[in-house]
């Protein structure tokens, strides 16, 4: 793969590219899903190919070919150059410039005890079926369990001399119980909703989730929600659990700080950002308790690597510090536009998609205390757990989230269970209302595999480390007419 990348880069420069890089990728993914005690889906998919990115006269081009051969590498390179040359012919265009970078050289492999791909399918199916069985309850009409495994090999070469080889292993799992009675439908999930959680790790990560042990609680809570009181409509104090904070962070901090969105290149699809380049260093994003970092070195993070897909070394970058915006997620191109930063967030989905600015691992830094400490300072409020729904505008400014379950907080203690809980806000106002963040002992890493962006569409796998956090004066519930 490395030799083919070199061949592609040589072919691109021979065809007239001023800069070229090539990524060769082989990826294998397995999914196992069971539903109501039966196998619902078993899939095993492998894909490989080479993608070549070039600059010709300051214009960009990208082409890819599934053939990991000299012919495939050369033809992809030549087609990329042709496309870039056609773009360069346009009189009205900006010349693409990249911030300087020392050529990257190195290798990386995910630390893993058991390769998730090599775990027998029968073992994965059995794990799902056993977990499902433990969720059964008279009111639970649908039980689902799923596991995923992925192994990827990736080589990268550039005309500047970069030479990188990386191997990644990922796996994840999740269970869901859907309860139905009296015209109501409620769902509970573990360890999180929307397909569970994943990590860059060996199969020992899935085993550590203890699906079978947690399953009875999941089924019981789904059933209990059917008879729970609805979330009231009011302005109150909320404490959001770590899992709900994942999506809060992802949608209202991760996406708006993607610098390509700030510059408008995703306006046609994924949206733009309420942030402006000149906000860097002075915009109040949240309260003094808000500290957010992007860290592509986090152990077990889905966005962890040695080098991104431009060859920029992994690093820990401050995005928000004491509530002030201090950084963007960037590429070499967008960092050059901004005049600040050096990239490090360029990631392509496989071989057939050009890299875009994506989240890697984005974390809300822990504060102090336990979740009980956060609750203790709430006289009257709501504790929200496990995301159920999300809605946020295309600038990432106005949002509404729903959670699977909530509990009243009365005089510092949890009270009765609530169903159909929602809350809403405006991004900087909401984060400004955060007056407490739980400490390191409550910090958990969660992995998402369905972050979509770009055209043609692609998905990024990202992780978020979060703790429970408390917010004052938040609108919850649905207003009645």
């Amino acid at each position: 793969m490395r030799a083919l990348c070199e061949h592609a880069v040589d072919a691109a420069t021979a065809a007239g590219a001023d800069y070229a890089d090539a990524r060769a990728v082989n990826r294998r993914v397995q999914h196992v899903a069971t539903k109501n005690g039966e196998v619902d889906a078993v899939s095993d998919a492998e894909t490989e190919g080479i993608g070549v990115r070039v600059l010709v006269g300051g214009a960009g081009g990208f082409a890819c070919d599934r053939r990991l051969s000299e012919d495939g590498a050369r033809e992809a390179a030549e087609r990329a150059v042709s496309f870039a040359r056609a773009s360069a012919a346009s009189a009205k265009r900006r010349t693409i410039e990249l911030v300087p970078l020392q050529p990257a050289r190195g290798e990386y492999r995910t630390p893993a005890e058991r390769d998730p791909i090599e775990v027998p399918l029968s073992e994965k199916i059995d794990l799902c079926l056993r977990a499902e069985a433990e969720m059964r309850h008279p009111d639970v009409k649908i039980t689902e369990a799923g596991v995923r495994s992925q192994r990827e090999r990736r080589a990268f070469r550039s005309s500047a001399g970069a030479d990188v080889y990386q191997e990644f292993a990922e796996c994840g799992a999740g269970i869901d119980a859907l309860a139905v009675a009296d015209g109501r439908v409620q769902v509970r999930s573990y360890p999180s909703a929307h397909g569970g959680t994943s990590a860059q790790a060996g199969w020992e990560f899935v085993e550590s989730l203890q699906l079978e042990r947690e399953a009875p609680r999941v089924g019981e809570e789904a059933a209990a929600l059917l008879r729970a009181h609805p979330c009231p409509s009011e302005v109150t104090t909320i404490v959001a659990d770590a899992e709900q904070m994942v999506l809060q962070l992802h949608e209202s901090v991760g996406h708006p700080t993607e610098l390509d969105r700030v510059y408008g290149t995703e306006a046609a699809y994924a949206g733009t950002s309420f942030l402006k380049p000149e906000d860097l260093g002075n915009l109040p994003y949240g309260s003094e308790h808000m500290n957010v970092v992007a860290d592509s070195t986090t152990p077990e993070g889905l966005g962890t690597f040695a080098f991104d897909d431009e060859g920029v070394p992994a690093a820990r970058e401050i995005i928000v510090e004491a509530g002030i915006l201090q950084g963007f997620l960037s590429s070499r191109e967008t960092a050059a536009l901004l005049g600040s930063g050096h990239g490090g967030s360029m990631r392509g989905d496989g071989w057939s998609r050009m890299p875009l600015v994506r989240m890697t691992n984005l974390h809300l830094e822990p504060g102090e205390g336990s979740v009980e400490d956060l609750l203790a300072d709430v006289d009257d409020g709501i504790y929200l757990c496990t995301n159920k729904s999300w809605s946020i505008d295309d600038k990432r400014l106005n949002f509404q989230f729903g959670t699977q379950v909530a509990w009243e907080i009365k005089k510092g203690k949890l009270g009765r269970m609530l169903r159909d809980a929602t809350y809403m806000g405006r991004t900087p106002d909401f984060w400004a209302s955060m007056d407490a963040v739980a400490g390191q002992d409550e910090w958990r890493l969660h992995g998402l595999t369905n972050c979509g962006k770009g055209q043609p569409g692609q998905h990024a796998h990202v992780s978020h480390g979060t703790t429970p956090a408390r917010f004052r004066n938040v609108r919850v519930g649905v207003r009645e007419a």
Partner: protein
Amino acid sequence: MSPDSAALDLAERAYRAAEADQAEALVHSEQSGFARFAGSEVHQPTLIRDESVTLRVVRDGRVGCAVTNRTDDEGLRETAQRAAEAADGSPPDPYFAGLQEP
């Protein structure tokens, strides 16, 4: 060989690699170009060439599926093995009515 003939040839090769009572091979070939504009400039120009095979097999009433874009003989052989393993690892599907007749 025309693109249509090449796709049928690939499907035939994948089908013959299958280790099954019944088998079905689906070939998806793509040659695409995408020019996206933002701020009146070309952004994310993308040219793709890909070809993949989805092989579905039935073994003792059990159904398994595997996908690959490695279309050489070794790739197809491994895909057939994976589809067989997927079938063998799954319980029999009481609702499966068999593959579509020609």
